[in-house]
């Protein structure tokens, strides 16, 4: 399938601190890909590179087949960008900001914007800097829907939103992206939201990608295993077993390996009576990256 977003061999440092080395990924047309990672693993760095606001140390990124550094400005009409914190021009009100952006986009969908704005309990002349974060998120979302881009890049869309606004945002975005065959690349700290929204996920750890696969496949394979162990038990490192830990003589570990294989490996280490359960995306994320 054709990749609408493609990053090849990205390497970036802040000073001497390596953010990632040789990171490559692609987002096929019509898919929603979520980038998951702990703080400082490079999520916003990736968004900044994708939106052309950061020059990586090496590697290249393409959106709609154009290299980001040399992108034709008119191609940006096809790319919707949501900046972390739903940043918009604070000095404008909802009418002014609509009038401003409409001049840049020939296929501007004014109705889509005002349909969403009608849900907000704000006066038409209320300035954006006097709105709550939730209201600002709706303004930002409304502007993206009106722009009607082919590709959406959303940086931490759930930041500062209460559950109601988060759910509204997620449901609107999912429905819109699926109905219009949009390609979406996004990050969020709230992983439950990602579970509702994304088709594929990339889980990043410091400096590398841990997992890149469809969420359905990840949740279909990923399991949490628990068992009682004797005091002083130490799990020996073994491939395919993620973040084993012992808390109060309870061993917990995660794996995507077949259940029988994990049981056999644990049995070799003297662990019996193993409980296994399916997990949601948040637990899978914790299972892959650990609890700090």
């Amino acid at each position, binding site marked *: 399938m054709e990749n609408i977003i493609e990053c090849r061999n990205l390497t970036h440092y802040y000073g001497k601190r390596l953010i990632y080395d040789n990171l490559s990924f692609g987002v096929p047309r019509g898919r929603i890909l979520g980038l998951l990672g702990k703080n400082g693993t490079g999520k916003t760095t990736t968004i900044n*590179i994708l*939106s052309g606001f950061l020059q990586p140390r090496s590697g290249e990124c393409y959106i709609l087949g154009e290299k980001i550094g040399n992108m034709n400005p008119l191609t940006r009409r096809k790319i919707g960008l949501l900046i972390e914190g739903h*940043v918009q*021009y604070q000095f404008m009100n909802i009418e002014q900001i609509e009038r401003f952006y409409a*001049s*840049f986009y020939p296929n501007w969908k004014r109705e889509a914007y005002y349909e969403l704005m009608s849900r907000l309990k704000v006066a038409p002349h209320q300035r954006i800097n006097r709105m709550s974060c939730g209201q600002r998120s709706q303004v930002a979302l409304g502007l993206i829907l009106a722009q009607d881009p082919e590709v959406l890049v959303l940086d931490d869309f759930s930041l500062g939103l209460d559950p109601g606004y988060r759910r509204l945002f997620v449901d609107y975005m999912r429905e819109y992206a699926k109905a219009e065959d949009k390609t979406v690349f996004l990050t969020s700290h709230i992983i439950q939201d990602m579970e509702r929204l994304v088709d594929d996920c990339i889980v990043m750890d410091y400096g590398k990608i841990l997992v890149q696969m469809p969420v359905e496949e990840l949740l279909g394979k990923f399991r949490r295993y628990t068992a009682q162990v004797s005091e002083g038990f130490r799990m020996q490192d073994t491939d395919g077993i993620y973040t084993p830990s012992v808390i109060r003589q309870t061993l917990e570990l995660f794996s995507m390996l077949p259940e029988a294989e994990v049981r056999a490996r644990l049995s070799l280490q003297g662990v019996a009576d193993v409980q296994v359960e399916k997990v949601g995306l948040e637990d899978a994320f914790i299972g892959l990256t650990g609890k700090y």
Partner: protein
Amino acid sequence: MIKAIFYKEWIKTKWYLLLALLVSLGFSAYAMLRISRVCSLKGAEHLWVVMMQRDAIFVELLQYVPLILGLVFAIVQFVPEMHHRSFKLTLHLPMRATSALASMLSFGMSMMVLVCVPALLLMWVYLQSVLAPELYWHILLSAMPWYLAGMAAYLLTAWVALEPTWGRRVLNLVLGVLLLRIYFLAPSPEAYNDFLPLLAIITLCYSILSVLSLTRFRDGRQD
């Protein structure tokens, strides 16, 4: 698209522009009022004598007004862009980043002209009624570097405000202050006359400095 950028800048700055226009006109009117008082108390001949013998131009209080207006204007226009780094929104618009910046600076320079020209016109109109052409041109030409300093203050403050890192911003600020000193080096009237065209060109060249800040912003430079 340029019209839309002008619209955005207008929304941001319209109240300040009104205030700046009033301040600029107010100071000029006050300077003219002082001249008018001297004329009514001691007669226009006294004014002429003082101007020729003591090198007085009677509008010294205007010296730093355009500079302050230009500096504050750039702050009003560019600091909101850097707040939450919303300048990213401008750079994501479907136009060349340099064109977007050039539009913003063109708006600013046009507005500076709009703020300064009425003040100069006010002086020109009034001074014609009390002074000979040589004398009122003497005053207006002596004030010209101050108005160029206003333009320079605007462009240099834009350069400082758009710079993404604090360390470099402080360095730019120091360089900016040194560059602004050029406009106030010679205290005697009409000292800059021969240098005025070149000074105007140098002033316009300061707009290129903002492109450096823009490039650094796009490269992701941060503290």
